[in-house]
């Protein structure tokens, strides 16, 4: 036999018998960890404190640090938040339950935990969570269930979330250490000769719906609605009422309140790196309040690393049917308040800030930080300043490789 023929034939035979390498299927899970450190500082002053019947100082300072953690592993995610609002309030002294210095300190601590699961085939995200907050005269437990669906072409999203809050307005949980037994509702000092309410609980049921639509390469619109039902003690026990006959009482509201809010949003990425975020909001409830919000937030991309953030918001509100200024309520009325938060007011909020996206190592380190200042001015003389800062750290990496044998 010819040597050449033998060689070629041997090679061909060996190719026939050779098997391809069994690579198997590999799965990679992306692990993402995001940590956000925030600090909010709030200063307020005005002359219509509800604690003193609609007249009196509303000076208040809030120191608000908080910590957010988000972890994603493949299709699972968890969100954890922990924060505190330390409140120094001049009007709190006028409740006078405890002898205190000129501005009594209070603290509201809050936390929340949420689990999310992404269903790849249906492009749906399911979420469930718990939250809680506690301060000296308020304790709240929240439960949340949510669902978000993205269309197959990624042009629409639909979302629904149910929130249930069960609150307890009794004072005393922070009186003798943390989570002490609650004691009583706290009334103004001169009005403690009787119980003014037969309920100390407040339950809130909120249904939030959302729809967003990508119109084209530069425009997105969104419609959001919130339906809310509140039951129980809806008044604030230490809000004084001065009647027209010089007698005094505490705020009284119906034991149910229904609220509806709707907002339309339009985000546009214009040429020149300017992003306009516009919102029109409408609100109504069965306390008689009607509200209209016009809001614009603009992001001006000065460079890939720096974004300027001016904002402007206008709000106008028709007063609640239960509101009257100090000394104008008739003692024969069933429900009454002198809380100017529920009166006919207009307000303007002007803001400025920046956001920085540092160039760091690709999947690790400081992702962005932002600084924002807001000035709030209300037509009845309330003024407030807010400073918010946030530092966002992000770490991404591939998870453990898992091999599957192919059949």
């Amino acid at each position: 036999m010819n040597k050449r023929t033998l060689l070629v034939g041997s090679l061909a035979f060996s190719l026939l018998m050779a098997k391809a390498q069994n690579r198997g299927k590999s799965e990679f899970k992306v692990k993402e960890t995001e940590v956000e450190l925030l600090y909010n500082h709030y200063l307020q002053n005005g002359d219509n404190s509800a604690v003193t019947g609609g007249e009196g100082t509303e000076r208040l300072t809030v120191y608000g640090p908080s910590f957010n953690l988000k972890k994603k592993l493949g299709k699972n995610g968890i969100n954890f938040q922990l924060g505190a609002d330390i409140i120094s309030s001049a009007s709190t002294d006028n409740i006078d339950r405890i002898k205190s210095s000129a501005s009594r300190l209070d603290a509201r601590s809050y936390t929340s935990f949420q689990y999310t699961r992404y269903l790849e085939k249906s492009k749906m995200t399911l979420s469930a969570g718990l939250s809680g907050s506690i301060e000296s005269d308020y304790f709240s437990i929240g439960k949340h269930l949510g669902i978000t669906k993205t269309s197959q072409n990624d042009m629409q999203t639909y979302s629904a979330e149910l929130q249930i809050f069960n609150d307890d307005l009794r004072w005393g949980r922070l009186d003798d250490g943390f989570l002490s037994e609650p004691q009583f509702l706290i009334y103004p000092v001169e009005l403690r000769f009787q119980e003014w309410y037969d309920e100390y609980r407040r339950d809130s049921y909120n249904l939030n719906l959302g729809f967003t639509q990508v119109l084209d390469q530069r425009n997105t619109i969104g419609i959001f609605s919130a339906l809310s039902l509140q039951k129980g003690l809806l008044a604030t026990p230490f809000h004084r009422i001065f009647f027209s006959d010089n007698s005094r009482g505490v705020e009284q509201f119906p034991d149910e309140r229904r609220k509806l809010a709707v907002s339309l949003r339009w985000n546009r990425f214009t040429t020149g790196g300017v992003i306009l975020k516009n919102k029109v909001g409408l609100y109504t409830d069965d306390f008689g309040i009607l509200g209209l919000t016009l809001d614009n937030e603009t992001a001006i991309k000065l460079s890939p690393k720096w974004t300027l953030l001016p904002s402007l918001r206008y709000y106008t509100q028709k007063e609640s049917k239960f509101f009257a200024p100090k000394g104008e309520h008739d003692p024969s009325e069933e429900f009454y308040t002198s809380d100017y938060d529920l009166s006919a007011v207009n307000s303007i909020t002007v803001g400025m800030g920046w956001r920085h996206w540092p160039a760091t190592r690709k999947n690790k380190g400081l992702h962005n930080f932002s600084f924002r200042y807001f000035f709030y001015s209300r037509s009845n003389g309330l003024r407030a300043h807010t400073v918010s800062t946030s530092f966002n750290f992000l770490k991404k990496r591939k998870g453990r490789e898992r091999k599957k044998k192919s059949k």
Partner: protein
Amino acid sequence: MNQFLLKIFALCLLLASLGSCSAALKPYERQYINDPEMSMTGFSANKFQHYAHAIREGSVTAEGKKGSGGCGCN
């Protein structure tokens, strides 16, 4: 309030139906839409100000991202 609700519901249906009129974007056409600043949900640095609005005004926002209960009064 029922008539107001019906009008709002009809408006939402009309706006939602506009969705069917938009042609799908290809991945390379989404560079502006996917920019983080275009997000409808917003950044955490704004949330405290929204919370302050909800406390100091009689209304709530439709986005409804309330972290917890709590009074925030005074």
